[in-house]
């Protein structure tokens, strides 16, 4: 069966992580979220998948290529321009992206699924398709119950007893909300739905297409299928998702590396003497990382590949991207280091270069060159001992 995965967004709420990777490629324990989604599609019988790309498109396209490594067939719909030697994204909205593919080749010639590439889901798509076909629906949205006080964040849907959608509300206030069932962004469509998507303009599925379908009295339905949904909409979500994965709370999520001590998993080519490091799991460490004597690593912590944790450093409940160097004087507590930024769980971030804190934490591949001032601060921090 055919599917479309929407991966063209800019991911502004997960900046600065999305300065270097598009949101669907944000790694959860080293594995891009989009990879888990594609595997799930495959396991549900979807083997021909078009992915629309825009922002940082090559990161996605170079990783999955034609999909053969995953046992599926993938093609891309790039929304952008090569201009002045650089690829610029020119995204056209979710429904606009669907329209573009259909106009290009008429790809969607039967029931198909559309979903976002940035949330981990384990929803039974076969069940969704069965429901969709039984109702002779042209557009079915998978719904999910949320707490009443959360409705303002989502598209809210009200359905009749047979599941037919009667009203949509985009991000209503708690008082105005017509229900507590929200649009998960997972859809089953028939090609007839393209009659309702205009050409030549950006068009969004949730906030524009579905209301148009309701207004036209088209047969559209909502279905409740409980599933696990791990969204990476903002830095705080990413933080929580990683903590859940590290503590084994995401059903079926494979932990990378091999367990070398209880609660401690590592890759190969590690440079360390485990007996000389204080470890409190769960801790996962990537390959080729070096951890000096006297370090303290307290979980849940994820340390990437090629990292250098200098002797005596303390790392507590952190997520460190690949090639992070942590200086001996560092006492890192709940910090995410990614793409040359230090990021707090609430999204506040510091550019390491601009802030001049390379002497605390930096890229391990850089030559260390510090200003006089930075050396003074380093000396002071050293003198602090513990």
């Amino acid at each position, binding site marked *: 069966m055919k599917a479309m995965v929407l991966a063209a967004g800019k991911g502004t709420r997960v900046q600065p992580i999305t300065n270097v990777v598009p949101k669907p490629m944000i790694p959860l324990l080293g594995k891009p979220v989009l990879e888990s989604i594609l595997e799930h599609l495959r396991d549900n019988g979807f083997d021909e998948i078009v992915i629309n790309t825009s922002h940082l498109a090559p990161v996605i396209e170079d990783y999955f290529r034609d999909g053969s490594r995953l046992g599926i067939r993938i093609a891309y719909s790039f929304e952008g321009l090569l201009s002045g030697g650089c690829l610029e994204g020119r995204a056209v909205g979710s429904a606009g992206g669907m329209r573009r593919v259909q106009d290009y080749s008429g790809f969607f010639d039967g029931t198909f699924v559309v979903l976002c590439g940035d949330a981990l889901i384990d929803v039974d798509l076969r069940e969704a398709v069965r429901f969709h076909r039984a109702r002779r629906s042209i557009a079915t949205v998978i719904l999910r119950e949320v707490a009443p006080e959360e409705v303002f964040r989502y598209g809210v849907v009200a359905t009749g007893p047979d599941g037919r959608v009667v009203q949509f509300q985009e991000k209503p206030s708690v008082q105005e909300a017509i229900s507590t069932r929200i649009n998960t962004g997972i859809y089953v469509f028939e090609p007839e739905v393209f009659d309702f998507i205009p050409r030549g303009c950006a068009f969004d599925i949730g906030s524009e297409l579905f209301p148009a379908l309701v207004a036209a009295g088209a047969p559209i339905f909502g279905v409740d299928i409980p599933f696990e949904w791990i969204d990476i909409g903002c830095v705080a979500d990413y933080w929580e998702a990683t903590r859940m994965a590290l503590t084994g709370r995401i059903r079926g999520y494979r932990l990378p590396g091999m367990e070398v001590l209880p609660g401690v998993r590592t890759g190969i080519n590690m440079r360390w003497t485990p007996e000389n490091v204080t470890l409190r799991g769960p801790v996962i460490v990537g390959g080729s990382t070096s951890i000096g004597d006297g370090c303290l690593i307290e979980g849940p912590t994820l340390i990437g590949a090629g990292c250098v944790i200098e002797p005596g450093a303390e790392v507590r409940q952190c997520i460190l991207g690949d090639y992070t160097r942590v200086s001996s004087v560092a006492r890192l*507590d709940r*910090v995410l280091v990614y793409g040359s930024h230090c990021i707090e769980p609430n999204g506040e971030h510091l550019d390491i270069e601009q802030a*001049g804190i390379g002497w605390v934490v930096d890229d391990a591949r850089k030559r260390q060159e510090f200003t006089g001032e*930075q050396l003074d*601060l380093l000396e002071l921090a050293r003198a602090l001992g513990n």
Partner: protein
Amino acid sequence: MRFEETKIGSILVAKVLDKRIAADVAPQFKAHLAGYLNNGERSIVLDLAAVSFIDSSGLGALISSLKAIGTDGHLVISGAHGTVATMFKLTRMDKIMRVFGTTEEAVAAIS
């Protein structure tokens, strides 16, 4: 750089009005703080509530001033928030300088 100065008894509360204390203004910053010491101030609360970014140079200027005051007096921080608070934490300067949430708390602590 711009400051707003208030005296509470013998305590000088100096509020930094600029949003950024970075390498380009660090020397002025340091000089301004030195000026307070030259005027005989010995109990200073530096209010950073309006500051949204400070870099290593800015911190360095603070530390120099702290050293200059030495055991003769107090130089403490109030109102550090967001990435400014993160900077103090990451560089461990929060173990060297006393950092308070509000100017009231800071003033009470050094009275």
